[in-house]
């Protein structure tokens, strides 16, 4: 029997649990040439702020063992252009659109979130309180428990849309941050964002990124992400979107077993832009072979001897 891959995440009904992670699929236009967006559970678009910005100077990326370091710096078109020019394209697809947002003050988070309430085609928001690459905002909120509380409270007041908070792994106790998000009315948690890292060129003695530090992603961070999903799963009852180095369906299953209700594919899109559809097919096969009829048969089902 074909397994049922559908899942509901904080009020967002998905045809399957595989999403495209924010910052790895742009606003959908470029990846749609290589990946059938009608097949994926949701696209989480690249972070949007109130005003447009250009991002960081190059070099912005470098390769690392089993991963990459980036400091792109959240270039974006701004909320107005995004709503007017980018959402109409995304509405053409039979998928769910989750808009990733960020701000540099608590009020800015509230304002950018509020701009999306009631916008046709937007199914939910993911608030990025964890980007390690911009001076203001981002990680400053995600690594301070009181700032996290204030920003989630402010966004919650601004919208009736489903609200997902994307957590930073650059903290000692990620479960306490997840708990605060749940207490303040978040509908789901996504984790992990990139791990703060740094690479130095031993020929030039200079950092490989112009920003000096950057966010580490790719398979290198997967065990950290799986551990954190498991910790958060044990601390909250709202659903978890797990991400961090997922490159195939086995990796996806690992996150589900750790407690994720859905997963997002990030850096792997760069290497193979249609990998998310392969993960969907692989997950369906995995469940069919084991007579698992739906995702509740996997989520949080890690067996501890």
């Amino acid at each position, binding site marked *: 029997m074909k397994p049922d891959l559908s899942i509901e995440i904080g009020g967002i009904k998905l045809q399957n649990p595989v999403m495209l992670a924010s910052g790895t699929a742009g606003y959908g236009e470029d990846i749609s040439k290589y990946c059938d967006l009608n097949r994926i559970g949701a696209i989480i678009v690249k972070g949007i702020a109130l005003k447009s910005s250009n991002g960081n100077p190059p070099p912005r990326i470098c390769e690392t063992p089993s991963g990459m370091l980036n400091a792109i710096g959240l270039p974006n078109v701004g909320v107005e252009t995004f709503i007017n020019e980018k959402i109409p394209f995304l509405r053409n697809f039979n998928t769910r659109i989750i808009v990733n947002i960020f701000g540099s003050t608590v009020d800015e988070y509230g304002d950018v979130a509020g701009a999306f309430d009631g916008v046709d085609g937007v199914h939910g928001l993911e608030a990025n309180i964890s980007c390690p690459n911009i001076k203001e905002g981002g990680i400053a909120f995600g690594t301070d428990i009181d700032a996290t509380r204030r920003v989630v409270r402010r966004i919650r007041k601004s919208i009736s849309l489903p609200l997902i908070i994307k957590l930073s792994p650059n903290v000692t106790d990620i479960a306490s941050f997840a708990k605060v998000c749940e207490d303040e009315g978040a509908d789901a948690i996504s984790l992990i964002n990139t791990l703060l890292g740094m690479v130095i060129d031993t020929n030039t003695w200079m950092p490989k990124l112009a920003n000096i530090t950057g966010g580490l992603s*790719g398979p290198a961070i997967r065990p950290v992400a799986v551990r954190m999903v498991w910790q958060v799963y044990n601390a909250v009852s709202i659903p978890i979107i797990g991400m961090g180095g997922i490159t195939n369906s086995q990796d996806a299953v690992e996150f589900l077993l750790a407690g994720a209700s859905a997963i997002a594919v990030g850096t792997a899109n760069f290497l193979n832009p249609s990998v998310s559809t392969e993960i969907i097919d692989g997950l369906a096969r995995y469940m069919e072979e084991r007579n698992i009829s739906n995702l509740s048969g996997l989520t949080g089902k890690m067996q501890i001897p």
Partner: protein
Amino acid sequence: MRARVFSNQCIKGSYYKLIIRPYQKITSIPGQFIMLRPAEAAESGIFLPRPFSIHNLSENGNIEILYKVVGKGTGFFCRLDNKSEIDFLGPFGNGFQINGNVTSDEFLIVAGGIGVAPLVNLAGLIRDFYPGKPVKVFLGGRAETDLLCVDELNKYASEVIITTQDGSKGVTGYVTDGLEQYLQKNASEKKYSLYACGPNPMLSRISDIVGHLNIDTYFSLEATMACGMGLCMGCAIRKKGGGYYLVCKDGPVFKGDEVDLSDET
């Protein structure tokens, strides 16, 4: 997409020619590129694909890549043999737009080192579209061992002017010195189109040389990138007047006055 390695030979010093045969044929124009990745990526230690311009696409569908071994990625690629397979994505990027609408009297091509890779077929394309119009190629490198494709360029070009920094072949100096001298002598007489590919300092110098002249200039740029298709946004290059272009999807070929290479010296 998967391809079989057809051959992979050292052509000179640390320069190699890799010929791959894709299982599905592709089409491309000069200046476009592909992203190459080892088929057994996990074992190779190479995580990100690497961009390479397409040197030639032969009639039987083989993709030819010219590359210089400089680091971990190319160090891996140079060990591939005709029993290997390789993954690629593309072609990506805009390429050189040669369409018969150019009114120039003469075409100038400036190639620095491995930057010659996309320019040989560009020279051929220009000759096909504009038979009889002069195509002058300025080919430069550190030494004679850095000069590639001289015979092929001679087939298409009306003249190939060679410079080496150490004087081991042609005129001693930078490739841009030869261009500068030529334009000083001739610039006011004719309308030129200029196409260049090479290290960013070379392109930056060309910007300075042609800055006050009315020459249509096109640069094919190189950048570190993770995807080649606009997803990672890693391959930023400064836009004139502020902001950034992405080399992969806005380029890799840019009009010389669109990009700000002043920091690239």
